């Protein structure tokens, strides 16, 4: 079946292969979707889960971490979904619309569909769309994403999600929270396509709540941003979770648009937040931010490829990481500039603050430039809390713990503030405080 030497499967891989056999009949999709799923599973079967000898996963060995794989979550019961939503507290009282995905599937009954319709936003069931003609196109991805192991894992097992379509020119007046609820234990594998029409404006809050137990969460967000559209996508991955949290953004940007994203990571044992950004239209801008916190022996990985395939686009990447205990942080950021993508302006910065002796940060900024008239810069720093700053605050009567909180918050807030989305600033800063107080 394959030309490569067969690998010896780990328990996690064996579980995944068995999971596929069990779920195969119930996984949604047309014949061609089924073929894509099978091919993706074959990739896992042949190459295994992504591991440290794969360059992109050198610092985040999913294969070693994922010692077993839980079954896919069963369809959610309505009462359990409502209960999980009741205790959910992502952005407090923030006025927003809600779209819910529960145990991997769209839950229209708890989503604000009528209100969204009135704003020019339609929401369809991703699982259903997979069964329709052309459903397999929903699983397509631009050139930097398809070979990725986490995306392959998603394609093999995707249960459902939503297709959100924002009409041309629609400026959605409130943020939309796309809530992923785990109403019972089990893996949740979702994919959502977000189509933003020309000149439209969308603020999307991607959040996760509930207890998936030993089940991994694998969510892919596929943004197709129309000309002159304006999008901000804030992803919040927080709370305790023993199983992997794997999130992928795929963004395809049209002409003259602005795409901003912020990936906020605080808490789970193993988080990989990866983004593949593609400029296909000129004069567009991408502003990508990351804020990560990890302690104990946890891992927080922010990985990013920005592909400047066309001229006259700007990208800004700004990532902040705070690590304590024996935690590990990873930043891998690559800016590709194609040979004809002249006048590209890319600026990448990653900064880490290490609160303990044993914490470890891997910063890997990369520029791959084939054009000759571009401005690209990158920088990386790792350091400890400045003792002089700490002493100054303490000399004013602020106890040591509180002074450290103030300094860590100040460090992370730089990225949150530059992201400049007032709707989420307070909520995210509260999360930082919660993490520091835990």
């Amino acid at each position, binding site marked *: 079946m394959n030309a490569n030497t067969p690998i010896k499967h780990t328990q996690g891989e064996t579980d995944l292969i068995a999971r596929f056999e069990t779920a195969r009949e119930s996984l949604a999709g047309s014949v061609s979707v089924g073929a894509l799923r099978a091919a993706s599973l074959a990739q896992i079967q042949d190459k295994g889960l992504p591991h440290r000898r794969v360059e992109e996963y050198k610092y985040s060995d999913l294969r070693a971490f994922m010692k077993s794989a839980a079954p896919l979550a069963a369809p959610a019961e309505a009462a359990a979904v409502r209960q999980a939503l009741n205790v959910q507290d992502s952005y407090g009282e923030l006025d927003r619309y809600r779209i819910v995905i529960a145990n991997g599937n769209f839950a229209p009954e708890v989503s604000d569909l009528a209100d969204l319709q009135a704003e020019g936003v339609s929401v369809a069931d991703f699982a259903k769309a997979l069964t329709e003609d052309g459903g397999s196109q929903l699983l397509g991805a631009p050139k930097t994403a398809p070979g990725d192991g986490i995306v392959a894992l998603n394609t093999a097992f995707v249960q459902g999600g939503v297709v959100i379509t924002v009409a041309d020119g629609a400026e959605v007046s409130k943020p939309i929270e796309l809530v992923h609820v785990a109403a019972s234990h089990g893996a949740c594998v979702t994919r959502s396509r977000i189509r933003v029409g020309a000149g439209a404006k969308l603020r999307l809050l991607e959040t996760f709540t509930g207890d998936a137990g030993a089940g991994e969460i694998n969510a892919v967000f596929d943004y197709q941003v129309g000309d002159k559209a304006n999008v901000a996508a804030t992803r919040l991955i927080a709370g305790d979770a023993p199983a992997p949290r794997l999130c992928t953004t795929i963004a395809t940007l049209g002409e003259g648009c602005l795409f901003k994203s912020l990936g906020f990571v605080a808490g789970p044992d193993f988080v990989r937040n990866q983004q593949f950004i593609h400029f296909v239209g000129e004069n567009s801008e991408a502003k990508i931010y990351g804020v990560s916190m990890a302690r104990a022996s946890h891992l927080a990985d922010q990985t990013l490829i920005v592909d400047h395939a066309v001229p006259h686009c700007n990208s800004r990447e700004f990532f902040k990481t705070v690590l304590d205990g024996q935690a590990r942080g990873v930043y891998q950021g690559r800016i590709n500039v194609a040979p004809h993508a002249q006048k590209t302006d890319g600026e990448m910065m990653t900064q880490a603050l290490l609160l303990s002796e044993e914490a470890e940060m891997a910063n890997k900024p990369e520029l791959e430039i084939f054009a000759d008239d571009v401005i690209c810069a990158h920088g990386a720093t790792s350091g400890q809390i400045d003792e002089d700053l700490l002493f100054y605050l303490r000399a004013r009567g602020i106890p040591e713990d509180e002074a450290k909180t103030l300094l860590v918050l*100040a460090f992370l807030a730089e990225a949150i503030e530059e992201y400049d989305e007032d709707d989420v600033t307070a909520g995210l800063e509260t999360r930082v405080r919660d993490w520091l107080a835990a």
Partner: protein
Amino acid sequence: MLEIKNLHARIAEDETEILRGIDLTVKPGEVHAIMGPNGSGKSTLSYILAGKEDYEVTEGEILFNGENMLDMEPDERAAAGLFLAFQYPIEIPGVATMEFLKTAMNAQRKARGEDALSIPDFMKRVKEAAAHLNVSMDMLKRPLNVGFSGGEKKRAEILQMSLLEPKLCVLDETDSGLDIDALRVVSDGVNKLRSPNRAMIVITHYQRLLDHIVPDVVHVLSKGKIVKTGDKDLALELEKNGYADFIDAAA
């Protein structure tokens, strides 16, 4: 208020001895000036009072209102009423001045068992104090000391001092980097805080500051010891003749 007895101290890292037996008693209501040449230990004394960890006390004691100050953490000393106006106020990016002031004031109140200030009460206090010191609202919104000029930094220090209402103020070369006008604003701010219940230690190189903040007692520090104590006229004498006479006396 403050009793320093036979204080010996050195730099923790390389064990260089800086203070070699300081004795100093400061009573409520008094303003003491400490003068001395570069390297005499003036700033070291201020840092040791505030509790900076870079120094090690090898002998002697410091009593602050009867309590052993060397056993207290820097934040406990501040809550007990000590304030050090830094020679070089540090820039703290990302911490808004207003937020910092509120955190510091409430932390000290909490340590003393008092209730936190209400927002209107806090704002009122800040606005009043800021007006006297020519500190603009724009400055208060900016991160602490970031992008402040030398004069603005010193005014911000005195603003903190007036809001925190300390019992003992230690001013470490507050005049350095100030032009004449700024010196006047800062000195007026300090003089406003003089009271029978509050004491001050003013550390300076130059007599100039003491024209504005008139001390009750002047000490000359040389090679880690107080070599001469007098009234305000001692400062004038120093200005005229330099430190040479006293340095020789110490040797």
